[in-house]
């Protein structure tokens, strides 16, 4: 094996072989996060339950009762819960990934490894949380006597992949930015909060006037949540495949842009972190 170290490295290098060599590290990093989070089992699991559940209760009180939203006959609690399920996954993933480099600075300063593993692995723990919160959804489906479309078995994993990539693309960029500018971490929760209102989590897309619909379309998470509702809660069989494809494409484009920035700064992380 031959390694050449020079001052310059091209930003477009994508060393697949190296990433493959470190795939066990990726696995162990993710496993560490999951293990540590669920070490105090009760608390770890409870958090995964509580965050979407309490949010659902709060939003139901305000939007289900005080303000009436047209949810096409779907009970508001389960309507909002499907949104929150994916949104919590997304927002936790973005937050975890954004902080992943700074919180592992002691490793970055002492050992060489492909840094991209850190944000990528930190998202896996939120996949776990997603599955736990999904148990609540199953309970609610039973309670409201709603039978999901069989297509859900294919669509939901696809939606999770899109969510993962979208969260990763933003997290990758923010993580690199966070290394350079330390106040980024204070901006992230605010940023995520604002994104919530640009995504149809607590309201249906139909409330937005059609001249602004295109803004929602640009946001992959809008498509994810809308599709999740269609496939899980309504009897409609019409999946907007085109939109799904567009969302996936969008998330991949953003990932590429983030990757360029990440690569540009990666080699100097140890100097500035």
């Amino acid at each position, binding site marked *: *094996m*031959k*390694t*050449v*170290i*020079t*001052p310059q*490295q091209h930003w477009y290098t994508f060393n697949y072989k190296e990433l493959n*060599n*470190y795939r*066990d*590290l990726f*696995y*162990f*990093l993710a*496993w*560490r996060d999951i*293990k*540590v989070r669920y*070490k105090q089992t009760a608390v770890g699991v409870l958090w995964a339950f509580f965050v979407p559940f309490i949010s659902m209760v709060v939003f139901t009180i305000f939007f289900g009762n005080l303000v009436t939203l047209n949810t096409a006959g779907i009970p508001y609690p389960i309507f909002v819960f499907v949104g929150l399920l994916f949104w919590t996954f997304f927002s936790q993933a973005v937050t975890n990934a954004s902080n992943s480099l700074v919180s*592992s600075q*002691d*490793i*970055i*300063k*002492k*050992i*060489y*490894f492909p840094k991209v593993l850190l944000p990528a692995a930190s998202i896996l723990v939120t996949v776990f949380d997603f599955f736990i919160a999904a148990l609540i959804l199953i309970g609610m489906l039973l309670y409201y006597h709603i039978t999901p479309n069989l297509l859900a078995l294919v669509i939901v994993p696809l939606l999770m992949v899109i969510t993962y990539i979208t969260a990763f693309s933003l997290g990758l960029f923010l993580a690199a*930015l966070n290394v*350079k*500018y*330390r*106040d*980024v971490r204070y*901006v992230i929760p605010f940023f995520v909060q604002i994104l919530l209102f640009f995504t149809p989590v607590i309201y249906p897309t139909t409330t937005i006037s059609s001249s602004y619909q295109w803004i929602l379309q640009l946001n992959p998470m809008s498509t994810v949540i809308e599709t999740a509702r269609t496939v899980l809660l309504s009897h409609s069989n019409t999946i907007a495949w085109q939109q799904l494809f567009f969302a996936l494409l969008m998330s991949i484009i953003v990932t590429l842009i983030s990757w360029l920035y990440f690569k540009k700064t990666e*080699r*100097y992380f*140890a*100097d*500035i972190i």
Partner: protein
Amino acid sequence: MEKPIIQVDHISKQYRLGKQASYLSLRDVLGKMLNPKHLFHSKTEVRQFFALQDVNFSVTRGEIIGLIGRNGAGKSTLLKILSQITPPTTGRITLHGRVASLLEVGTGFHPELTGRENIFLNGAILGMTKREIQKKFTEIVAFAEIEQFLDTPVKHYSSGMYVRLAFAVAAHLEPEILLVDEVLAVGDTQFQKKCLGKMSEVTHNKGRTIIFVSHNLSAIQKLCQRAILLKDGYVIKDAPVEETIHEYLKDNSVVSAEIKLDQRKDRQGNGKIKITQIRFENFSSEAISILRTGQDVRIIFNYETDATFSTVHDVIVSFPIMNQFGETFLNMINLATGNVFKTIPSKGQFILEWHNLPLMPGTYYFNTFVSASNVITDWIIDAGCFEVEYGDFFGSGQLPPEGQGNVLLKHDWLVRDL
């Protein structure tokens, strides 16, 4: 001749000073962008310094190279570049083989995880695959001597156990090139020996190449055939180990009664209290550049504080002394004498009065260390050295033979019949 396994050509590394002390904030950058005055000439004074300058050397397979030099000479920077943690500013390095670096013991250990879990995590961080770790697992556990505590979270480990476990993982790495920084400084002597033994065994049997940084010259002497001396980022000497160590000691024994420390950059701590100068004098307040065994010595540490000095309390001052092999054998610390300073003047002197200097003739090196409220304010490793010459410690005109210990104690010998 065999092709070198490591080829280092014209490596330099430049760091920016000044800006580095505090982190950049997005707020400042955005603020500057919004302020038109700064938009076009936002040149802030950034001082640059070279941690390494035009370093060249090559290493052949199976060599163990010692890297020595004062703190701030560039040893750690060189290891960081070789291990790809940070890129060089100029130059080129070619490595033929798998590299593993051990710049710190227990990197990535997680306190909540058990010993078993940390072996896997740490092993993966050091570059081992899961299969390799599984293969070595029993060996690692046996080496660390922690069998009973394997399933206890490491936060409950004693520091000795922690270090042993961390070392054990590292000792079982099997790269072609191993880079080791000052990691042997921790851990008990017995275990250090075991690790040194393991390291040399591995190189001899399997042809591993090691670059080894240490202050512990005796360890360097034992392990390496060749050593490189760095000073201010330059390679000063690249020769067989004895020659290089000789050069290093020669260069370091420039003694004077006063040692200025205010220009030292390689200090650690928050800087609230900083040692600026050290002066050696006798009890008649005359400066002395060479101390004598048995002499009454006063060591005066001038210090300065920053604006927050009024909040400073419980000041601990420590003066650890090392022999020429970098082994600390004596530490004078006001915590032990019960003289912790509750409060101190904003600018002043810490004075260490030392009766009857109990040191054998020789050269001694020291660190300075100050903390306030248990937070390190100033810590200079290798702050300076002093020379001790013959003096009549026992009042008998005799001292023990040289090379049989550094420290003298007043004692008596008797004989009686039975």
